[in-house]
């Protein structure tokens, strides 16, 4: 459905009928306003044009809509009020009688206490203004409502004399009529080359190719131009170009804006805007989805994404910020931005008090504010890219792959879970053997003391003959046992807790509770290395493995070491009456001396229901063999040093660096930038991808990683390894694996290495460049003589296993013994990794979401968040039509209201902004202000005709663009006589075609385009092209944020996709008047400065583009200088150069060529700017000389101007 039937959303009636005009806007619409901004004596007085600006500027602040500020009870913005006596009794205005009108007396008084405006306001009326006011009163003091608040009526198209100016559509008639009155002639149609360049730049943001120009020039059909327009409107570049203007207004950016200004993820919204323009989404739908996509019935993913508009405002995460203050700021900004974009209203004034000029009450402001005061969002953004609420938006490819993986994993897992009878049988035997091996050698620890820590009411612990402990006596709700245990000197690898049934306990179980269940909430242990040494502090034991032979759902053994009193280990009802084992294994064996003391604490807090263990025993793994089995040899953490400087990957790979000769962990080396030293990296994990370096910023570097492994006997070790981008691995000085360059998909490099008894040294070299560099090192330490520590812990607890433990052991065993299983298992693991990686990579985008319960809105006195006034209900200003009947009082209702054909502003404001895009100045010069203080339209009837036509067409945006660009008005030549330029410097009368410098984005995109470098990939995350270094660091918190330029295509995308950081926007855009995107901007300034010259001449982005351009000129521009210059000139300006222009360029080319021939070094330097590498085979001096000429052409006024 292309156009949604929005009225169905309305609960009742369905019609969007509005109440009639309001009091303020009671008089006729602004039909007869003349185009000229100047009032002259021979013209009749026009209230709107001549009088209200004077009153508004000078009087309304005290005598206008704001009743709080009103002085002397005098109100001048409404006629009937102005005719009433003021407080003094004087009549301010007596229509037709200047002498009796006190207003005139006051404005002409010389008495500083009398004269109006009062001197302290620093405002004075000119003689001309005073005269106008007199003449106005003399002629009857006629008032008119403000034109913009009256619904536009479709005006009749004026009759005009036909002329050489061929009226193409009604636009032209509206333009021609006042020109005829002004006795001015419109300009002739621009030549075809100019025309196609103008319209191509305007609709796509890029210039036409010479082929496109040729085709158009050759097309003699009557609708040749219309055909071009149709082609351009269909181009996907159209949406990108139109979106750019919209994103200025919506203040879209890739960072949060306030304080830390960290990255935000909202680019899906940016892409949505591009798509909406390309799909020609009707403007009313475009409005509704952005303001309230989330509130539509069963919103689609796209509609939710569109609601990102509501989240485009800046947000903060500043430490000391007060939430309520920012909640108000966000709502202010959302409201005022929306008011500017859709209504051209400047609401900011009414934040603090009733608007001084426009009839918007202070209270009405908060009626609108309440629409934006109900978002369900955290006020502090937490400096996260996706502060709530946000949406995960997988790409079609991601969704597809996710589904595929789900299936693969399911079927793969089923295969893994299928019985393998022979292996399974062997496994049971193997398991039993290991259990036996691991059950031997445990030392049962005798308690030197054992007691409850409760001072009274705790259990009494009795040591039985078999060194078990039995709890007797009191059984409180919660209890804590503390045991001091004697140990043998040597080492300690694990502690084992056995719970044992006892005759004396309920149900003959191991628990003191009536039902026989126990809950061990925490198991803790401390070791004092030497009790005789006062400096020997107790050291808490850190258990890396906890395993139990049985468990009850929800009471896993891990909960006995999670530090939480309300969770714990327990076994199920069926297991009461049996002994159970829990094992607590250490990551590293600890040293135990004769003077060591172990304290074990058992806490029973979990349910506060007398569920302490009643009979138990503690043993320790101290026996050498057992310690070895439970704690097989492990590699030490990596030591890392780097980056060492190298020119490229190959050199880094082949060069012999100092650590390759000798590893000396104390030594410092010269690095790429600074001195570098060895650093321990305990967080690098075996088998995982470890980040070696985030980014080298375009520099190549070599890193060395060193570690040792001590083994009790010589053995073999299997390992797998990979790295970005090249690697070498030495073991004990012998090269065992190498890969000169990492190829995607090449997978792990595998090797089997010989280890000697004792210490073995590993040295890994990784050579890398730019971007995150990762490496994976996966040693297989297990073999027939040992199993990994986690496996050993499981096997030590029981002969038969169940649940996840059983699966874990089974997988381990099968992997060791079946190649098929191993492959299937590794495949599933890989698929799971991929699934996780996709999950992580799914784009997120911030969206709007309404809070469940409407937040109350109060007026804020002086706009201060902590000065609440009266409660306010959602509503719209009385000067404008009411909400459509049945419209909900939320953002959706607001959007429907804005799009109602009764709304006087939305269509006018929108067509005016589009007009401004094409002509440089809007029909209303102040697109941000259609209020009383805004400029009156130059062509009021044209504005109203366009607005009504826009609504009539079903808010058809492309149709409106077509209407404008196919008008004869648009097609006029921009050449102007000096007389006309003097008379109408800004072309407000439209007697000539538009001519102005294009925006920064168009300049850059054009340079990339003609330079053959533009990569037209659409959408996606923002990219980071060339930017001078240090700009982010200079302003960011602790200099922590760095701009990291993209490799490759990120440098050559359209500027729409450039990363926009509000704290430090792209400099080559700011220089060309781009806004910071901190707040809504609907009109960019257009300046002409030396910094712009420097950027276009020297910014590497433009230098490189010139080089690309030169490369194209030489390859595609024919063989003669003439043909090449023509080619170049046409690429940039559309036209062929004239002979004298050719001569200028040719002269310079010759001189440059001679110079570069004499100075090959300079040529080389110039050709080295940027990443782009020419294909080769061209004469370097020639290429350099042409690069300077290409740069000149890109810098020409004609190139940077839409003419």
């Amino acid at each position, binding site marked *: 459905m292309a156009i949604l039937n929005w009225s169905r959303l309305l609960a009742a009636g369905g019609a969007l009928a509005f109440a009639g005009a309001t009091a303020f806007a009671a008089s006729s619409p602004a039909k007869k306003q003349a185009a000229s901004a100047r009032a002259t004596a021979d013209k009749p007085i026009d209230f709107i044009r001549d009088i209200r600006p004077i009153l508004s500027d000078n009087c309304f602040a005290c005598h206008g809509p704001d009743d709080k500020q009103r002085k002397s009870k005098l109100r001048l913005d409404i006629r009937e009020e102005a005719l009433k006596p003021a407080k003094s009794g004087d009549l301010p205005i007596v229509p037709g009688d200047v002498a009796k009108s006190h207003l005139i007396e006051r404005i002409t008084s010389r008495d500083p206490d009398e004269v109006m405006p009062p001197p302290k306001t620093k405002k004075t009326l000119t003689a001309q203004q005073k005269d106008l006011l007199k003449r106005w009163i003399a002629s009857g003091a006629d008032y008119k409502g403000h034109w913009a608040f009256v619904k536009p009526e479709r005006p009749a198209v004026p009759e005009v004399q036909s002329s050489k100016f061929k009226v193409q559509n009604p636009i032209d008639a509206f333009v021609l009529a006042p020109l005829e009155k002004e006795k001015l002639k419109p300009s002739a149609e621009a030549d075809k080359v100019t025309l196609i360049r103008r319209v191509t730049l305007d609709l796509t943001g890029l210039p036409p190719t010479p082929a496109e120009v040729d085709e158009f020039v050759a097309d003699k059909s009557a609708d040749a131009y219309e055909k071009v327009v149709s082609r351009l409107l269909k181009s996907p570049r159209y949406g990108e170009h139109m979106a750019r203007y919209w994103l200025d207004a919506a203040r879209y950016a890739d960072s949060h804006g306030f304080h830390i200004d960290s990255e935000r993820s909202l680019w899906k919204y940016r892409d949505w805007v591009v798509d909406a323009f390309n799909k020609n989404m009707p403007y009313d739908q475009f409005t509704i989805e952005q303001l309230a996509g989330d509130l539509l019935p069963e919103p689609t993913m796209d509609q939710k994404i569109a609601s990102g508009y509501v989240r485009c405002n800046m947000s903060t995460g500043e430490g000391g*910020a*007060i939430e309520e203050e920012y909640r108000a700021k966000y709502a202010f900004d959302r409201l005022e931005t929306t008011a*500017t974009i859709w209504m051209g209203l400047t609401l900011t004034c009414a934040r603090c008090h009733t608007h001084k000029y426009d009839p918007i009450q202070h209270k009405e402001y908060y009626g609108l504010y309440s629409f934006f005061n109900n978002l369900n969002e955290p006020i502090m953004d937490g400096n996260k890219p996706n502060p709530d609420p946000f949406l995960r938006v997988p790409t079609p490819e991601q969704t597809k792959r996710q589904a595929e993986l789900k299936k693969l994993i399911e079927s793969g897992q089923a295969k893994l879970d299928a019985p393998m009878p022979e292996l399974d049988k062997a496994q049971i035997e193997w398991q039993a053997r290991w259990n036996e091996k691991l059950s031997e050698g445990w030392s049962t620890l005798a308690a030197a003391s054992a007691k409850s820590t409760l001072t009274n009411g705790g259990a009494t612990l009795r040591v039985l003959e078999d060194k078990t402990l039995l709890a007797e006596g009191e059984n409180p709700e919660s209890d804590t046992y503390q045991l001091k245990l004697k140990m043998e000197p040597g080492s300690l690898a694990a502690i084992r807790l056995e719970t044992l049934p006892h005759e004396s306990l309920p149900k003959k179980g191991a628990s003191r509770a009536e039902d026989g269940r126990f809950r061990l909430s925490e198991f803790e242990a401390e070791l004092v290395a030497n009790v005789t040494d006062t400096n020997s502090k107790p050291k808490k034991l850190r258990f890396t493995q906890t395993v139990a032979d049985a468990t009850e759902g929800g009471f896993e053994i891990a909960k006995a070491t999670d530090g939480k009193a309300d969770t714990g280990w327990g076994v199920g009802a069926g297991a009461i009456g049996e002994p159970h084992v829990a094992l607590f294994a250490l990551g590293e064996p600890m040293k135990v001396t004769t003077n060591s003391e172990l304290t074990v604490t058992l806490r029973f807090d979990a349910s506060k229901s007398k569920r302490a263990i009643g009979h138990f025993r503690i043993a320790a793994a101290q026996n050498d063999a057992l310690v070895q089995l439970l704690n097989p040899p492990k590699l030490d953490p990596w030591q890392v040093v780097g980056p060492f400087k190298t020119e490229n990957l190959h050199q880094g790979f082949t060069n012999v660096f100092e650590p390759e000769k000798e590893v000396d962990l104390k030594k410092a080396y010269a690095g790429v930038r600074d001195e570098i030293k060895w650093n321990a990296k305990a967080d690098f994990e075996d088998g995982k991808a470890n980040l070696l370096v985030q980014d080298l910023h375009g520099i190549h570097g070599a890193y060395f990683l060193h570690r040792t492994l001590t083994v009790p006997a010589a053995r073999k070790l299997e390992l797998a390894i990979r790295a970005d981008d090249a690697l070498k691995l030495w073991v004990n000085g012998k090269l065992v694996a190498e890969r000169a360059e990492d190829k995607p998909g090449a997978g792990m490099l595998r090797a089997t290495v010989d280890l000697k008894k004792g210490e073995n040294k590993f040295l890994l070299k990784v050579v890398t460049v730019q971007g995150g560099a990762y490496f994976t090192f996966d040693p297989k330490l297990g073999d027939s003589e040992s199993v990994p520590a986690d496996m050993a812990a499981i096997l030590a607890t029981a002969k038969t296993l169940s649940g996840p433990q059983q699966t874990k052991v089974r997988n381990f065993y099968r992997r060791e013994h079946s190649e098929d299983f191993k492959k299937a298992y590794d495949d599933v693991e890989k698929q799971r990794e991929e699934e996780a990686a996709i999950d992580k990579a799914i784009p997120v985008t911030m969206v709007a979401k309404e809070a469940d319960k409407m937040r109350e809105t109060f007026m804020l006195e002086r706009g201060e968040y902590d000065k609440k006034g009266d409660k306010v209900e959602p509503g719209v200003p009385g000067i404008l039509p009411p909400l459509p009947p049945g419209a909900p009082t939320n953002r959706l209702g607001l959007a429907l209201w804005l799009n109602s054909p009764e709304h006087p502003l939305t269509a006018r404001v929108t067509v005016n902004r589009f007009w401004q895009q094409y002509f440089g100045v809007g029909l209303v010069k102040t697109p941000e202000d259609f209020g009383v203080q805004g400029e009156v339209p130059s062509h009021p009837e044209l504005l109203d005709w366009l607005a009504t036509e826009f609504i009539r067409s079903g808010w058809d945006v492309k149709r409106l663009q077509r209407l404008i660009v196919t008008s004869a008005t648009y097609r006029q030549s921009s050449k102007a006589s000096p007389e006309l*330029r003097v008379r109408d410097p800004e072309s407000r009368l439209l007697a000539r075609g538009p001519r102005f410098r294009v925006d920064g984005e168009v300049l850059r995109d054009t340079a990339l385009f003609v330079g053959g470098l533009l990569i037209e990939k659409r959408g996606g995350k923002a990219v980071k092209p060339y930017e001078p270094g240090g700009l982010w660091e200079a*302003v960011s918190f602790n200099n922590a944020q760095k701009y990291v330029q993209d490799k490759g295509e990120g440098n050559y995308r359209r500027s729409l996709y450039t990363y926009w950081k509000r704290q430090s926007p792209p400099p080559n855009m700011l220089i060309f008047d781009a806004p910071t995107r901190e707040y809504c901007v609907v009109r960019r300034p257009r300046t002409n400065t030396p*910094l712009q010259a420097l950027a276009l001449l020297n910014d590497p982005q433009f230098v490189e583009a010139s080089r690309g351009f030169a490369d194209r000129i030489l390859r595609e521009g024919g063989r003669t200088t003439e043909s090449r210059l023509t080619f170049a000139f046409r690429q940039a300006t559309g036209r062929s150069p004239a002979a004298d222009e050719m001569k200028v360029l040719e002269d310079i080319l010759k001189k440059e060529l001679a110079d570069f021939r004499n100075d090959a070094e300079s040529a080389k330097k110039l050709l080295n700017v940027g990443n782009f590498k020419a294909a080769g085979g061209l004469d370097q001096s020639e290429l350099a000389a042409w690069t*300077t000429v290409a740069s000149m052409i890109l*810098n*020409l006024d004609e190139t940077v101007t839409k003419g």
Partner: protein
Amino acid sequence: MNPLLERQRLLTRRHFFGRMAAGIGTAALGSMLNPRLFAGDDSGAAILSKPHFTPKARRIIYLFMAGGPSQLDLYDHKPGMDKLHDQDLPDSIRMGQRLTGMTSGQKRFAVVKSLFKFSQHGKCGTWFSELIPHIASIADDICVIKTVNTEAINHDPAITYIQTGFQQPGRPCVGSWLHYGLGTENQNLPSFIVMISNGKESDQPLYTRLWGSGFLPSEYQGVQFRGTGDPVLFLSNPPGIDAQTRRRMLDGMAKLNRKQYDAFADPEINTRISQYEMAYRMQTSVPELTNVSKESEATLKMYGPDVKKPGTFAYNCLLARRMAERGVRFIQLYHRGWDQHNTLPKRIREQCKDTDQPSAALVRDLKARGLLDDTLVVWGGEFGRTVYSQGKIEKESYGRDHHGRNFCIWMAGGGIKGGMSYGETDDYSYNVVKDSVHIHDQNATILHCLGIDHEKLTFRFQGRDYRLTDIHGEVVKGILA
């Protein structure tokens, strides 16, 4: 010459600037600026044809101490603090003032006295802490204002407020207002330059908006000089392009552009030609500006040991003086690291080590060259710090939270009475007792020194005449020379 064409040239501000930039019209710009020439016909009455009254200062060097320097440890001497130390701040003093989220949860608000000794300096006898002996040594040249105040209590809104007159982004900064109001005084350098120095700490961010032009045309935005690379972005010719080639390119382009002008009579074209010429001149004048090799040893020594390291505050102070000599209108330095919520004594020592000597040297150097009379120097941050400690008071350490109700800045030079202090705070340095100087007043006074009535320098935007001081601000007459 075609008289119509000539008239049109005169009427067009673009061209007007073009001429200025090309060095043709070199008379004092202030008196030549015609409001109607400035921004087409829309900005109307705002722009100045000449200053509102005779200016005392022609330019400003603003040493912005970002983060909020502690007035209690630098300028606001409170001898009674020994007695109040570690006592709770009385409610009668705090009066329920709002606190930042960083201390609002604190159980007590214990007053902490400064660890640093204060003494009187100069003929005027102004008090300074021992942390800033160099600034103390120019006591007779500066005016310390003790009662500057702001409503903002966090960095982002506070720094935006003091620099643009509004807590939310969108308004022009003080430098842009001046540039807009008074235009430029030199032909070869930007009129409004910003430099950010690196100190030991840089723990609060800055924002491009702080030197942004807001709703004013973007040519009034500050030009950020960088500590490394080209001081002005894209200043240097690309490698392999020498001055001769560049000259050739510009001449060729000018020829082609002039031809374009003949066809279109668009004054923007001539402006463009002139802007390229000015860019060319900047390529020489900026390196000349940043080349400090000819500065005397005595001068360098005055600024302290860091002066030779680009990017330090000392180096930037020296550059600021060189810019002042060359007619740059507004020179804004930022030095960060004053946000001392904890370990204040240690950190403020380091900050002062970086900033004290160069700040004083700058004033002294300007004075020695006769430049101080028409240069206004301002030293200060976005707010001050609380009298109560953030976190625990330790023997040698404490922290202070943000405090906007009173803080200290100083001004010196053009238009300012030296050798005085202004305003009084209560015994706790928590409230203003006498002569409040709101940040709008501070900005009104800055404009006043430059000959501008802050109420009259306005720009029509969104239907309203905006000004730097919003609808507030009184010139602080008591500190004017």
